[in-house]
């Protein structure tokens, strides 16, 4: 192969790796710093004290009678009437998945009790009025897509100037509810300068806000205020497990009889690039895959492209696995060529063996010298193996969060986002439970075989240790993979099967 192509592949891989390692890391800035920066950035006359943000969730739960469903084509919204907020959204096209916001888009004052005013096919209006002001809140839906507009109108009914300072909540983060899902909860804060994924367990304020995003495993809610209103994003910790996220405007003074309108663009839907791009491509930064985000984004695009070709996620994953194997193949091929060259050197080695019969240490050194002189080596090195890791971690994130995989079947696998569950046992086994997943078991066996043929036997105590590890490692990996999405196990299985075939061929070359 052309040397420049190889160099190009290696360099681009290096860039991929260092990009995610050096560029994305600084985004996870400690919230405290951000808060400090923010407070200096805000012009001084504007009072922004965290205490001034009233909590939305001090009250007891609203009785079910005050809830009502508002149906759209793809989802139905469960509104909480007195709060004029969204309790949760049920996605009909995704197995009725419930995305809880628990008072999402609440106007932050618990004393306000709204009344449902007007329910049209594409909008819902709530109103509130007292002696001093009149507030109306209108949710306007687009029906076919997952975006909506929230319009808040406030009118001063008095003859004196009226101060209003009402935060808008995006939602409540509850880490306690579903333990296994809590790890997927994530915040996105985009300011004029950068996009952050702050820790939701700490209080923080963000000035120059562009938009706010909140997501669970599959779905997300994004809110963007109109630019002119200059909102500040906030995260407020209510308890160790619960935090609130929302927007805080500067304090407004309404002249007598003045009415103001604040508009917010909102997306509440699946974390699918295609759907978010349709509404606003900028918002796609909500879909963030951690340290190896860059690789993950590339993999996601590739996977979607393959799905469009194959129309089956299982097939797409298999092709992806083969593709990644092919990308790393130059490294393997080089090693194979190195093996062949070594065979050519074999007569020299035999000669050395004769010369240094009684000095094995000297012999080894001479052989090593011979190899490096001819620039060959039987071993591929540590880097090729290490290259697999970032790809695997990135793919893990993509598959775990991919809503498209949910409910997609492949062969006997009913759902690629869950373990394959070939059959269920009548009794429940310890640790493994009552389901039999065949993919992780096959993978563990394959791993055992691969180790058996590829490890170099060592002498003495490490030999017995090696034998134990030969069994322990596949078992440990089997357990780790047992509960993982079958799509991911499928990827790993295909990849290690290809490696195994390569290894066997390599041994034959020897």
């Amino acid at each position, binding site marked *: 192969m052309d040397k420049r192509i190889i160099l190009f592949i290696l360099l681009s891989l290096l860039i991929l790796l260092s990009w995610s390692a050096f560029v994305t890391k600084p985004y996870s800035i400690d919230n405290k710093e951000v808060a400090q920066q923010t407070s200096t950035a805000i012009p001084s006359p504007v009072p922004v004290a965290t205490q001034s943000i009233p909590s939305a969730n001090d009250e007891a739960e609203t009785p079910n009678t005050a809830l009502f469903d508002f149906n759209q084509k793809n989802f139905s919204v469960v509104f909480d009437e007195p709060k004029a907020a969204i309790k949760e959204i049920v996605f009909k096209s995704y197995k009725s998945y419930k995305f809880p916001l628990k008072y999402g888009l609440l106007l932050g004052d618990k004393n306000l009790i709204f009344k449902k005013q007007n329910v049209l096919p594409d909008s819902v209006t709530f109103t509130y009025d007292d002696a001093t002001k009149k507030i109306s809140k209108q949710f306007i839906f687009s029906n076919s897509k997952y975006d909506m507009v929230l319009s808040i109108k406030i009118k001063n009914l008095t003859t004196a100037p009226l101060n209003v300072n009402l935060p808008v909540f995006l939602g409540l983060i509850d880490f306690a509810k579903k333990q296994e899902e809590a790890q997927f909860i994530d915040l996105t804060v985009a300011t004029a300068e950068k996009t952050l994924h702050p820790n939701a367990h700490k209080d923080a304020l963000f000035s120059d806000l562009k938009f706010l995003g909140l997501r669970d495993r599959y779905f997300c809610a994004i809110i963007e205020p109109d630019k002119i209103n200059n909102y500040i994003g906030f995260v407020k910790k209510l308890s160790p497990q619960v935090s609130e996220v929302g927007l805080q405007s500067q304090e407004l003074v309404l002249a007598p009889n003045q009415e103001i309108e604040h508009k917010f663009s909102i997306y509440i839907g699946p974390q699918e690039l295609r759907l978010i791009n349709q509404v606003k491509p900028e918002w796609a930064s909500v879909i963030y895959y951690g340290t190896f985000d860059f690789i993950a984004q590339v993999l996601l695009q590739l996977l979607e492209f393959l799905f469009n070709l194959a129309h089956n996620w299982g097939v797409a994953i298999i092709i992806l696995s083969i593709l990644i194997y092919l990308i790393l193949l130059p490294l393997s091929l*080089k090693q194979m060529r190195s093996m062949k060259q070594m065979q050519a050197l074999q007569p020299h080695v035999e000669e050395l063996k004769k010369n240094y019969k009684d000095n094995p240490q000297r012999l080894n050194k001479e052989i090593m010298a011979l190899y490096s002189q001819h620039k060959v080596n039987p071993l*591929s090195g540590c880097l090729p193996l290490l290259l697999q890791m970032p790809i695997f971690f990135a793919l893990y994130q993509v598959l775990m969060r991919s809503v498209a995989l949910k409910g997609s079947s492949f062969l006997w696998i009913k759902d690629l986002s869950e373990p394959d569950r070939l059959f269920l046992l009548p009794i429940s086994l310890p640790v493994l439970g009552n389901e039999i997943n065949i993919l992780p078991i096959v993978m563990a066996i394959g791993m055992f075989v*691969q180790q058996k043929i590829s*490890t170099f036997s060592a002498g003495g105590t490490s030999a017995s240790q090696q034998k134990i590890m030969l069994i322990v490692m596949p078992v440990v990996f089997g357990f780790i993979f047992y509960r993982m999405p079958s799509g991911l196990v499928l990827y790993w299985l295909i990849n290690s099967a290809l490696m195994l075939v390569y290894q066997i061929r390599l041994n034959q070359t020897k």
Partner: protein
Amino acid sequence: MLQKISLKLLKIYQGYIRTVLPCACRFSPSCSEYTKQAIERYGFLRGAFKGLGRLLRCHPFSGRSGYDPLE
């Protein structure tokens, strides 16, 4: 502190994980041993950096192999 933790981790790697990996280093001493020595001698940051440099050399296209001790 970081130095001690990283040395411990490298020891665990050498004791348990390396024995079963198909990975076999082109150099002597191996990448992990090299990194260990580097961290011992230069402290965590510089040592880890030296180890990383060694790792980046440890692939079939580097054209180098064999005896490559820490200078």
